[in-house]
Structures are given as structure tokens and as C-alpha cells.
């Protein structure tokens, strides 16, 4: 059941109505929301309900076991078992085929060809999201950051709550579980903000992401050698905007839907395409995943505590895992590694410039006698938005690895890009409006949506309904026919 469909609209109206009639009876409300969440998930493939149930059981039991076990060794054993169990489920369904194929290719390359059995495993939708939520729950209990839940309903609903179940955001137990045990509240601000987020999310997905996919991205990435360098260059940027609108659109709708049911999710994107450095971009892109990796991988690896070389190594490991999280393919691993290497390069360069600048200032070295690096830094600092231009282009061009089906497509893509042919075929004015308009919208004030929500709040319910209806109608009318599934469903 996709968000931008009539099915979901009817489903949500029913859930909204019934859940609020149960707002006085918390356990019954939770049971109802759990039931509809399982129905929502089973709508794709009911067979995977057992997997969702098993994942929830593992984490619930691990949480209980941790609450009874006070010995350090015992707690370590429990948390390790729970993490291994979670990762085993994820590994089997998501990575088994990839590892078997990779091993088989290595064996063939060294002349040890073997027939390794391949299983045709269907990837359960949302598995990466609910697995990471389960792991964070168990680790947080192990670290004594949260208390384990006694009521299984709480944990089962936390893992399966339908707005974030299939494509995030990855909600933290410490943020969500306390909300389940207080009477839900709804204010007029929340209602108007929730409606606006849903509308913005639908516009991003149905209009921008869908058109960019069908007008340029899908064609260019399926046959890069058939297009000019100009088309290839802008198709990479179009893909970045497409995936941003697709995924942040989903997050906006999820946050809006949860808000209308009385629950608060943290924001998952914060205008990342306006970032003027890669570090800033990664602090604003898929925030729930990057903060998860920071808290449960980068910091346990001792982050930057053991010197620069350790920090650089940990950055690459973390970004490589981020790549692998997105998909079981070498293209994703290379993409993640490249992000890590670029982050290292950026940090090194900034640190070096800062250091040399300090030394030069202390010794009052005139500009003409300063190092070439300092002189270059002074030159580029005069170019308006230099950091933003470099960041956006680096992110867009490396995203070719993310989108391409395989490495041969990547090489064809970059080969075509370096031919410097300038005849646009699919990079039309319409596509240019979508790309540049979406990027320009990233520079708006973060308060813009809140201000619009305040205006919407003042409308009477009937007027607000007409506004909502017309906005939905406009999105439906200007969007292309049919809605493709969200890209992040496959992760």
C-alpha cells in the first residue's frame, strides 16, 4: 500500500477516526495500531509478517533478559546474541545472494569454479529499517540509556508502527516508547503541520521524483552510451534531486501521518542540497541513519579519540557500512567508500588550511609569500558559493555508483561524460526547472513550513478541507500517470 494511493487514503481516514475514539484506552489503541500496522505490512506480502513478528520477539526477549541480568559478562553475551540474531536475519534476506555470487566469482577467477547453490530470496520490504530499530533498542538497554519495556505491545508497535515501517525514518526507542504511555494529544498546530508535511511529501514524490525518473534518470542510466555528456552530467544531478524528493517525500508523509495520530518523529532531512561541505551534507541527509551509524558504529570504534589515522579509518568503515546498508552490490560499497574518502579529504584539507593559516598569521607572513595552498584557499574564498558547488557536484557525480545497475554501466557513464559532447536530448527545459527549482527550494528558511502551517491553522475546517482537496487535486493532475514505489523500499 503506497502512500500516494486511494487505498492508503481510505486506510488512513479509517485509522485516524478509530484510533482517536480509542484515545482514552491506551492499551486498546496500541493493539489497534499494531493490528493495522501488521495489515499495512501484510498488504505487500503477508508471508513476511512472521519475519516482522520474529524480529520483534528477539528484541523484546533480549530486552527482558538484559533487565534480569546484572553481570557484565552476561549482559555482553545477551546483547551480542541479539545483534547477531538481528544481523543474521538481515544478512540472510538481503546479503546472502550477494555474498554467494561474489564468492563464486572469486573462485572462478582463481580457477576453482564451483557450483554454489543460489537461493532466490525475495527481499522483505523495510527489513533494513526495522532491523536497525531493533538493534538500537537492545543496545540502548545494554547501555542503560533506556529501560526495557514490560508490555510486549509497546515493543511490537515500536518495531512495526506503519508510518515508518517500510522506509523509515529509523525511529529511536527512547524517542518513541515514552509517547506510547501517555494520553495522545492533538493540537491545531500539529494538524496543520501534519497536513502540510503530507502535501509537501506528496508533491516531492508524485511530481518531482516521478518526472525526473521518467524524463531523464531511468533512460540515461539504462543506456548511458546513447546520451551526450551534457545529458549525463545533468542526469547525475537529476538523480540526486530524484532520490532526495523520493526519500524525503516519504519521510515527510511518515512524519505528517504520525503527527496526525499524535506521535512525534524527528526530521530526517534538513535541506541537505544547500550544504556547503560534505560533512554538513551528511549531517542533513537521512539524519536517522547517519545518527544511528554515528552512535552504534562510529563512536564504538572510538571515532576520533585515537588520533587522525584512526578517525580516517573509522570514517571509511562507517561510510562503507552506510553504502552496504543501501544495497547488496559492489556499486553501493564503492559509493560508500568514496563518500568516506571524500570526507577524509575534506577534513584533511580544512585542517591543513586552518593550521597553515594560524602559523602564517602568527608570523605575519604576507600573502604573496604564503604557501600555494593558502593562496588557493584565499582565491576560492572569493568565489561565491564555491563550497556548495563543489559539494553538490561531488555528491552528484559519485551518486552514479549508487544508481548504476553495475560497474560496467558506471564505466560507460564516466566514459560518456568525458567525451564533452554538448547536445541535450533528455535534459530539457522542463527537467531543468525540476532540478534547479528543487535545489533552489533548499535555500528557503527552515521556518517557512511552520509559517505556512500557522496560516493554515487559522482556516475553518471546511476551508482547510477545500484547500487540502485542491492541493491534492493539483498534485494528482500535474503528476505523471501511475506512481512508482518509493526508491527506499528496496533498501
Amino acid at each position, binding site marked *: 500500500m503506497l502512500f500516494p494511493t*486511494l487505498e492508503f*487514503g481510505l486506510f488512513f*481516514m479509517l485509522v*485516524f*477516526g478509530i484510533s*482517536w475514539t480509542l*484515545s482514552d484506552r491506551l492499551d486498546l489503541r496500541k493493539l489497534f495500531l499494531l493490528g493495522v500496522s501488521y495489515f499495512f505490512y501484510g498488504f505487500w506480502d503477508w508471508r513476511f509478517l512472521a519475519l516482522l513478528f520474529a524480529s520483534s520477539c528477539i528484541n523484546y526477549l533480549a530486552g527482558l533478559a538484559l533487565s534480569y541480568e546484572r553481570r557484565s559478562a552476561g549482559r555482553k553475551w545477551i546483547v551480542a546474541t541479539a545483534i547477531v540474531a538481528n544481523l543474521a536475519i538481515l544478512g540472510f534476506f538481503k546479503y546472502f545472494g550477494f555474498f554467494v555470487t561474489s564468492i563464486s566469482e572469486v573462485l572462478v577467477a582463481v580457477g576453482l569454479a564451483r557450483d554454489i547453490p543460489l537461493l532466490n530470496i525475495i527481499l522483505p520490504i523495510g527489513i533494513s529499517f526495522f532491523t536497525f530499530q531493533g538493534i538500537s533498542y537492545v543496545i540502548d538497554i545494554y547501555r542503560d540509556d533506556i529501560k526495557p519495556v514490560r508490555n510486549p505491545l509497546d515493543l511490537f508497535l515500536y518495531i512495526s508502527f506503519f508510518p515508518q515501517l517500510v522506509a523509515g525514518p529509523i525511529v529511536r526507542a527512547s524517542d518513541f516508547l515514552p509517547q506510547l504511555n501517555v*494520553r*495522545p*494529544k*492533538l*493540537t*491545531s498546530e*500539529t*494538524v496543520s503541520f*501534519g*497536513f502540510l508535511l503530507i502535501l509537501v511529501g506528496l508533491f516531492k514524490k508524485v511530481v518531482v521524483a516521478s518526472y525526473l525518473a521518467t*524524463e531523464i534518470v531511468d533512460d540515461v542510466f539504462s543506456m548511458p552510451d546513447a546520451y*551526450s555528456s551534457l545529458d549525463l552530467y545533468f542526469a547525475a544531478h537529476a538523480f540526486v534531486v530524484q532520490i532526495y524528493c523520493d526519500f524525503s517525500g516519504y519521510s515527510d508523509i511518515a512524519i505528517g501521518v504520525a503527527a*496526525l495520530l*499524535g506521535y512525534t518523529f524527528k526530521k530526517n532531512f534538513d535541506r541537505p542540497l544547500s550544504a556547503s561541505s560534505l560533512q554538513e551534507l551528511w549531517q542533513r541527509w537521512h539524519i536517522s541513519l547517519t545518527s544511528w551509524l554515528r552512535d552504534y558504529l562510529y563512536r564504538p570504534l572510538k571515532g576520533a579519540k585515537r588520533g587522525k589515522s584512526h578517525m580516517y579509518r573509522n570514517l571509511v568503515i562507517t561510510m562503507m557500512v552506510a553504502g552496504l546498508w543501501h544495497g547488496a552490490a559492489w556499486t553501493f560499497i564503492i559509493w560508500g567508500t568514496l563518500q568516506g574518502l571524500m570526507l577524509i579529504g575534506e577534513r584533511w584539507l580544512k585542517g591543513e588550511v586552518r593550521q597553515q593559516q594560524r602559523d602564517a598569521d602568527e608570523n605575519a607572513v604576507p600573502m604573496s609569500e604564503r604557501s600555494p595552498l593558502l593562496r588557493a584557499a584565499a582565491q576560492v574564498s572569493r568565489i561565491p558559493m564555491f563550497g556548495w558547488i563543489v559539494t553538490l557536484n561531488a555528491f552528484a557525480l559519485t551518486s552514479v555508483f549508487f544508481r548504476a545497475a553495475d560497474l560496467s554501466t558506471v564505466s560507460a557513464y564516466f566514459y560518456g561524460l568525458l567525451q564533452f559532447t554538448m*547536445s*541535450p*536530448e533528455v535534459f*530539457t*527545459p*522542463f527537467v531543468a526547472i525540476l532540478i534547479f527549482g528543487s535545489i533552489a527550494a533548499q535555500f528557503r528558511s527552515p521556518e517557512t513550513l511552520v509559517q505556512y502551517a500557522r496560516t493554515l491553522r487559522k482556516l475553518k*475546517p*471546511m476551508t*482547510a*478541507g*477545500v484547500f*487540502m*482537496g*485542491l492541493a*491534492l*487535486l*493539483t498534485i*494528482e*493532475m*500535474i503528476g505523471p500517470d501511475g506512481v512508482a514505489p518509493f526508491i527506499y523500499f528496496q533498501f
Partner: protein
Amino acid sequence: MITSDPFETDDVASLKERKETEETLASVRHAGIAMVVAAAVLLTFNSAGLQTWTRNLDGNTMTDRWVTEADNWHNLMARLGFAGPKDAVQTAIAEIREIEWPGGVDAAHADEVDLDDEVDVDAQ
């Protein structure tokens, strides 16, 4: 030192809770009405979407009936002129999608045209 109002008793707390409950109820009512009105707007102006949706459902006696009802509804909306704006907007969007860069077609296909000309000359 007294850090809180000694007269803030259970009554004050319950009054606050009652206010929150009333606000929640009012907001739920507000959101519910807005959703129903929005659905009515969509049913009126996007009757073709409803028609498509019913036709994509698995066929059985009930859904066959829904298809008939959706067809009747769409015909009524079309007669009243409510289905027209959708077609007009979609035509406008299709036209915007077709816009080329100034001189773009000639520049982009210049090589192809030259090649075609050469082929024609050779044929003659």
C-alpha cells in the same frame, strides 16, 4: 523555599488535562472534517481517477458494481463540467514537457541531418 504554587492542587491539574482533552477533541474534529471535505473535492474533480481505481480492482460481483457506479459518477461529473480542469491541466503540462531549448533540436541533431544528406547524395 516554596518553588511551586502551593494552591496548584489536583483541581488545577485536572482543569489543565480537561483543556488538553477539549483541544484534542476539537483538533480531531477539525482534521476529520477537513479530510472528508478534501475527499469530496477529489471525488468531484478527479472522478476519472476513481474510475481508473475501480477498474484496477480484482473482478468480482462487488467490484463490478463499483465499476458501474464509478462510471456513472464520472459521466455525471463530466456532464457538469467538473472533469474538464484535469484534462486542461494535463494538456498544459504535456506542452511544457515538450518545450525544447532555443535552437536545441537543430543543434542536437545537426550531425544526423548531415549524415542523412550525405546518404541522399550518394543515392542520387
